């Protein structure tokens, strides 16, 4: 029995947060479980730097941890985001209600383990198991506040996450069967060539798309991200959605599937940004921004599929987005916790991060876009550039709303000077978002950093931002807050469901959302109940048994069965 | 002790014991016990001797047929002799406490000894007339036992019984007359050696007569009230042993005396009657409210099982392994029915003593008060349902397998249905016993409860140790039933 092979750090990166999750269950720990959060991602961070791989042949169906370049890049980003988020949580949530905080910490560590796992996975089973962990455990982060909105969001999230799980697993199983093994590379090849490859790929896109926030499967995202506590939102938007992204990057085969991704990505990139403008809650606006940015990632990913190129640019764009978006979410918490000039500083920090997301010149965002656009055809390149306009509009709207929200909230007690643990993480993340992509440009297949300072490129980076600001100034509603019509609720497509619109009160929404297809389910249940009441009586089930037996007999005896090929005698069964 | 002596012990012992019981009065049960011990020893000797040397034949006074009386202990006979002595012993153990009043004692012990003696005589007789005499003696003692019942219906039941029995005797005797006319002999083997034009009619008459005595459907109407009305230990004897005498005679007649006169269609008719018994008896048992009536109807149904053998042993399958299986299966079924049915009736005897009733409603909760006997009842019921591990199962299995092997699956399916019916009608008393309310009961000695348990265990053991029974039954079996064996 081999415990593990390869780099022990690889296994540690996965086992360590799991162990911490168990520690968080220790009842005496209470809110001090928060101390564990920053520790969770340290081995993963180290691994991202050293780039080891390993495995444990006896675990699951042979655990393989072999991140590709995309995985390693995103692992590093994710580890940083979780580290920063953990520190922020330690600062923001300390001395809360013990049991609930401990539960939050446990879910946190478990979610991180999954998040690291999807980046590390070298086989489909490990990927799926990690994906499950990150999907389902994140539910614990969403519902932490136990408000009606949080519970609604949690419910919608859980339902969609489960559906996503199932789609993912089914797709993986079809592919793994064709591949006769679970190795990621083989699975990807089987998706391209194996029987039912298209079906499997479709299932994978659906399963991963739900997680990634791909339009139109993104509906949970604008509900869940704002509902979570600030550090939770940060990791949700920054890191957790990337579980879906990495899946698409490493699993989907080259081919025409990319076109679909590009189409959906474009719809998301522009549509979500525009819909975000209808929102008032800064965190909801950020959530729509995430959907929009993921749209761009999907476009990049789709292009790499169509042209059978490296997925690294898409990963790089996603990595930058993760850092910047996490910084933005944390800065929301920071702004609300700060007062006076500290608040102004915090807003400035948020503006900096926002500029990076929008791709303002010389920022990490610009570098990421540059890397991404390297392989794009012109029209797509233009489209990606144009997203800069919508992103700018949306993020400026975000800053406006953030300032308004903070102003409405007033200055917190204690003069408004935030603790180090509150301002440190967003600052570090913003810094990383601004700098890291620039530094890594060559390594990620992009042009030299000097590219960013060339005149045309500077202009190309700056005009969308300016255009966005200009548009916003032109179109901004005059006449103050009162003149604007009531904001639309988050959840866009979900709100089209009849009972969603009907139920004004959040609690009713929660119930309605949970019931989903209420009337249909009731009808089915009562029909089943009636049938069951009959079947329990032997009279009926006897008839049913006779009919089953007779029917089976008649059916299978009337014509010869198709002799299904089974493994020829003596052929070994290959097992992963 | 040689085979001859053993046979003499089994035939004369009970008769002498009956006389002794009459004379001994209060010590009647002791005399019976002595006779039973001697009988048991004799059965052991016979069994052993027969396995070593084959069937044991005795010519009384050295006279052979046609004038002399020939006795032969073949496998079938020894099996029934053994079953009888075991059941008698168990009944003795329970009845010793039951028949305390002088009148009942004076009737029961001599009658039971006579009944046993008659039964033994029927098993070993090779002569149609001797069989008749034995059967009459058996019937009359059985009637006397039924009349011992305390309930108001007992005399009525006994009367009905005797009328049916008389009718049966007459019809049978008519057949015997025809046989004698045709063959000039009543010895089974000599009848088999020749043929006569009257054989078919004789066979029909004798069969009908014996069917009445065996309570084969649709001639069973007398049995349930008689067996339900008799004192319970007597019911055990009546239900377990008495109908088997008629059955054995039928088997001897059909397969040993007149194998030529039994066409497949006739054999099928017998089996059809058996099937009718299984279904009708089972359904009627389902409708009863009193335990002993359920058991009595169960006897009707179980007797039907035995007749399914006819088309399997005779007819197209004769001489094959299937026939041998059906033969052995049926006889094992008869033995295990004897043991198990005696067990359940003895349980009923104990319960009636304890709570004074055998209504199902009154039995509720007895499992808590008398667990041993309830367990015995359950085990015996399992055997009667034909569920493993029990003699009843082996029997059903062998017969069913024979029916499938011989391409007559219908009869096997009837057995299966009968098993289900048995489960259904035994379920009701079992469920009642298991119900929550423990009734007030008079204390019953544990040892007494162990008696039916021993019988039930014997029935179960028959399932595990059926190979010796099979070997035994092959000894002296008619050629049709002596398959080569798989």
């Amino acid at each position, binding site marked *: *029995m081999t415990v593990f092979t390869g780099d022990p750090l690889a296994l540690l990166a996965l086992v360590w947060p799991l162990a911490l999750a168990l520690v968080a*269950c220790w009842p005496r720990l209470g809110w001090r479980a928060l101390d564990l959060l920053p520790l969770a991602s340290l081995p993963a961070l180290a691994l991202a730097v050293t780039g080891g791989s390993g495995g444990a042949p*006896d*675990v*699951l*169906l*042979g655990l393989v941890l072999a991140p590709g370049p995309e995985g390693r890049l995103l692992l590093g980003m994710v580890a940083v985001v979780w580290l920063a988020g953990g520190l922020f949580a330690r600062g923001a949530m300390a001395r809360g209600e013990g049991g609930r905080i401990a539960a939050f910490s446990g879910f946190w560590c478990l979610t991180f383990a999954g998040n690291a796992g999807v980046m590390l996975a070298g086989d489909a*089973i490990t990927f799926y198991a990690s994906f499950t962990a990150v999907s*389902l455990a994140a539910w614990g982060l969403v*519902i932490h506040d136990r408000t009606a909105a949080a519970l609604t969001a949690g419910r919608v999230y859980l339902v969609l996450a*489960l*559906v996503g799980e*199932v789609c993912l*697993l*089914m797709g993986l*199983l*079809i592919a*793994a*069967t064709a591949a006769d093994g679970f190795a990621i590379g083989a699975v990807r090849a089987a998706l391209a060539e194996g029987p*039912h490859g298209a079906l499997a790929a479709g299932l994978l896109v659906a399963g991963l798309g739900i997680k990634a926030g791909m339009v139109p499967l993104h509906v949970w995202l604008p509900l869940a991200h704002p509902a979570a506590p600030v550090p939770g939102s940060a990791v949700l938007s920054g890191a957790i959605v990337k579980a879906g992204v990495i899946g698409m990057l490493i699993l989907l085969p080259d081919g025409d599937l990319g076109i679909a991704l590009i189409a959906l990505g474009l719809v998301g990139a522009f549509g979500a940004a525009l819909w975000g403008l209808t929102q008032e809650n800064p965190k909801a606006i950020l959530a729509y921004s995430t959907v929009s940015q993921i749209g761009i990632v999907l476009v990049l990913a789709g292009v790499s599929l169509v042209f059978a190129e490296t997925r690294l640019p898409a990963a790089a764009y996603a990595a930058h987005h993760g850092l910047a978006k996490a910084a933005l979410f944390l800065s929301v918490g920071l702004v609300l916790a700060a007062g006076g000039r500290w608040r102004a500083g915090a807003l400035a920090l948020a503006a900096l991060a926002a500029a990076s997301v929008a791709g303002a010149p010389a920022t990490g965002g610009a570098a990421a876009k540059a890397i991404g656009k390297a392989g794009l055809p012109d029209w797509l390149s233009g489209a990606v550039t144009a997203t800069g306009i919508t992103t700018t509009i949306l993020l400026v709207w975000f800053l406006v709303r953030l300032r308004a929200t903070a102003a409405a909230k007033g200055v917190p007690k204690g003069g408004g000077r935030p603790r180090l643990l509150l301002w440190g993480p967003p600052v570090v993340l913003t810094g990383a978002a601004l700098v890291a992509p620039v530094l890594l440009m060559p390594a990620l297949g992009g042009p030299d950093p000097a590219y960013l300072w060339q005149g045309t490129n500077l202009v190309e980076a700056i005009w969308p931002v300016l255009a966005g600001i200009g548009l916003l100034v032109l179109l901004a509603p005059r006449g103050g807050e009162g003149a604007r019509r009531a904001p639309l609720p988050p959840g866009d497509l979900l709100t089209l469901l009849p009972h969603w619109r009907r139920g004004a009160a959040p609690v009713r929404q929660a119930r309605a959302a949970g019931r989903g297809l209420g009337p249909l389910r009731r009808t*089915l249940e009562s029909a089943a109940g009636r049938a069951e009441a009959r079947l329990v009586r*032997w009279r009926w*089930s*006897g008839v049913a*048994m006779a009919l*089953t*037996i007779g029917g089976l007999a008649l059916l*299978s005896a009337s014509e*010869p*069965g*198709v*002799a*299904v090929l*089974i493994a020829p*005698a*003596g*052929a070994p*069964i290959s097992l992963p | 002790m040689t085979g001859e002596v053993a046979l003499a012990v089994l035939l004369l012992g009970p008769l002498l014991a009956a006389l002794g019981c009459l004379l001994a009065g209060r010590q009647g049960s002791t005399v019976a016990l002595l006779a039973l011990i001697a009988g048991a020893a004799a059965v052991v000797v016979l069994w052993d001797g027969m396995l070593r040397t084959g069937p044991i034949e005795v010519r009384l006074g050295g006279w052979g047929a046609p004038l002399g009386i020939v006795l032969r202990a073949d496998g079938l006979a020894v099996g029934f002799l053994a079953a009888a002595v075991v059941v008698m012993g168990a009944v003795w153990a329970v009845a010793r406490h039951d028949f305390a009043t002088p009148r009942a004692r004076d009737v029961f012990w001599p009658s039971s000894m006579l009944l046993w003696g008659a039964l033994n005589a029927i098993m070993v007789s090779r002569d149609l007339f001797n069989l008749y005499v034995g059967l009459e003696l058996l019937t009359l003692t059985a009637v006397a036992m039924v009349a011992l019942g305390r309930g108001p219906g007992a005399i009525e039941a006994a009367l009905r019984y005797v009328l049916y029995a008389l009718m049966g005797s007459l019809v049978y005797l008519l057949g015997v007359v025809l046989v004698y006319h045709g063959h000039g002999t009543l010895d089974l083997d000599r009848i088999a050696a020749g043929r006569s034009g009257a054989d078919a009619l004789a066979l029909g008459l004798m069969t009908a007569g014996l069917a009445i005595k065996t309570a084969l459907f649709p001639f069973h109407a007398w049995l349930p009230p008689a067996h339900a009305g008799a004192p319970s230990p007597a019911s055990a004897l009546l239900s377990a042993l008495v109908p088997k005498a008629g059955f054995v005679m039928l088997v001897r007649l059909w397969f040993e005396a007149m194998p030529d006169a039994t066409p497949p269609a006739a054999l099928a008719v017998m089996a059809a009657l058996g099937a009718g018994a299984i279904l009708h008896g089972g359904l009627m048992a389902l409708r009863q409210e009193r335990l002993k009536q359920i058991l009595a109807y169960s006897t009707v149904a179980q007797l039907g099982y035995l007749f399914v053998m006819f088309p399997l042993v005779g007819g197209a399958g004769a001489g094959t392994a299937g026939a041998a*299986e059906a033969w052995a299966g049926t006889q094992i079924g008869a033995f295990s029915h004897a043991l198990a049915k005696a067990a359940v009736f003895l349980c009923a005897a104990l319960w009636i003593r304890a709570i004074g009733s055998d209504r199902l409603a009154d039995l509720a*909760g007895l499992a808590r008060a008398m667990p041993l006997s309830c367990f015995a009842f359950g085990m015996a019921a*399992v055997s009667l349902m034909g*569920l*493993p*591990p029990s003699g009843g199962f*082996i029997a059903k*299995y*062998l017969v*069913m*397998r024979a029916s*499938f*092997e011989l391409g007559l*699956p219908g009869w096997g399916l009837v057995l*299966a249905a009968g098993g*289900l019916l048995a*489960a259904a009608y035994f379920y009701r008393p079992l469920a009642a016993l*298991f*119900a929550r309310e423990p009734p007030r009961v008079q204390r019953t000695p544990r040892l007494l409860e162990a008696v039916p348990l021993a019988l039930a265990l014997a029935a179960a053991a028959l399932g*595990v140790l*059926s*190979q010796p029974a099979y070997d035994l039954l092959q000894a002296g079996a008619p050629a049709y039933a002596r398959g080569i064996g798989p």
Partner: protein
Amino acid sequence: MNALPVVILLTSLLPAAVTFFLPQEQHAWRNGLNLGGAVIKLGLVVVLMGAVAEGIEPEARLPLAPGLDLVLRADDLSLLFVSLSAFLWLLTTVYAISYFGEKPELSRFFGFFSLCVAATTGLALSGTLITFFVFFELLTLSTWPLVAHKQDDQSLAAARSYVLYALPGSVAVLVAIIWLEGLVGTVAFAAPPDLSGVDRWSLTLIFVLFVGGLGVKAAIVPLHGWLPGAMAAPAPVSSLLHAVAVVKAGAFGIVRVVYDIFGVARVQELGLGTPLAVVASVTILWGSVRALQQMELKKRLAYSTVSQVSYIVLGTALAGPFGTIGGLVHLVHQGIMKITLFFCAGLYDERAGARRIEQLDGLGQRMPWTSAAFSVGAMGMIGLPPIAGFVSKVYLGVGAVQSGELWVLAVLGASTLLNAAYFLPLLWRIWFLPPQTEGIGATPIPFAAVDERVPGLVVPAMLTALTSVAAGLFAASAFSPLGWATLIAGGAYSP
């Protein structure tokens, strides 16, 4: 070595025989006897596993009548089942001893309990069809008093419906066995009969009879009506019933019939694989839908069993190496997960008086270990990695694709979602909802008085929960149930 199967059988048969006659007050003797039997049995099973792993297949034979031998024989398939039952029997015995304490009628209970396990063991170790049937019936009979143990109206009704279903099923099986033996002679699992001379109709009907009869025990829809009612039995019984004994016996029988009698190839040739898969799928979905509607915890679990056990049948019906492995391994996985759930359900009932779903609110605070075990079981049932149920699901899914039955994937997916739909709300209530203020359950137990300080009940639940995690986490190890199932399937797919 040949006597080993018999000795293993006796380790539960003898305690059963003795326990029946122990006076009620002899708690120490009775407990010692049962525990001792269970421990010895587990030890012997381990020895047997070692032997079988080395290729020895011990066989003991008791001739009953010509062509009717009772044969006890250990091969790898039987060991899979025997080891499961031996392991779970030990834990259930511990649990049952704590559960009942010094309640009345224990001699009867433990007698039948051991008998039930003896029947399961015998059934697993059966070498011939008829031996299988003998123990199959013994199982029916010994379970009846267990289901009726409480002797209230509900239990008696449940026991009645159990028999009402089980016996016709048994008859169907018996007819099938005898029919088959009438055609091809005695059937032993070690040497599958040559069916080439038998006509299609007969074979088809025999197969249908087998599946119909065994399906009653395996609770295949529409033959499952007895199972939800049987949850009226005491918790240890439900645990054993759902995890090891009755339901599994049916599924095990179907596996035997398909692999060791008909052979996969012939089942496919007769065109019976797909219909069987359809039946199993219907059962999976129907059981889940019904579970969703139940508001009583044990009933919900019972319907869940209906659904889950058919995974085994499904795997068998898929008739490919992976499907086989998935079905076989689920035999074990479902057992350890479901027994965990029933252990916990018993704990909730005993310690908190909670029987209905809504009474579970907040119990995680007072009974964290129980609730943790319960959560593991529930998540395993949904098929979340790394718990055992996940491994089964993966293999079944791959098996389905291998056999070209893609629709089975949809069934598995739907079942996963339904499982989540009826298990996750339970976890939500246990862990996240505030406790109910008044006492809960039939006998009000104040929330503050609820505790789980009964190691005899909690430890078995924890152990099975841990086992189900380990079985999934270390599935690729050669010693896992998966490893063993792979070994068996290797045998089924090579000459």
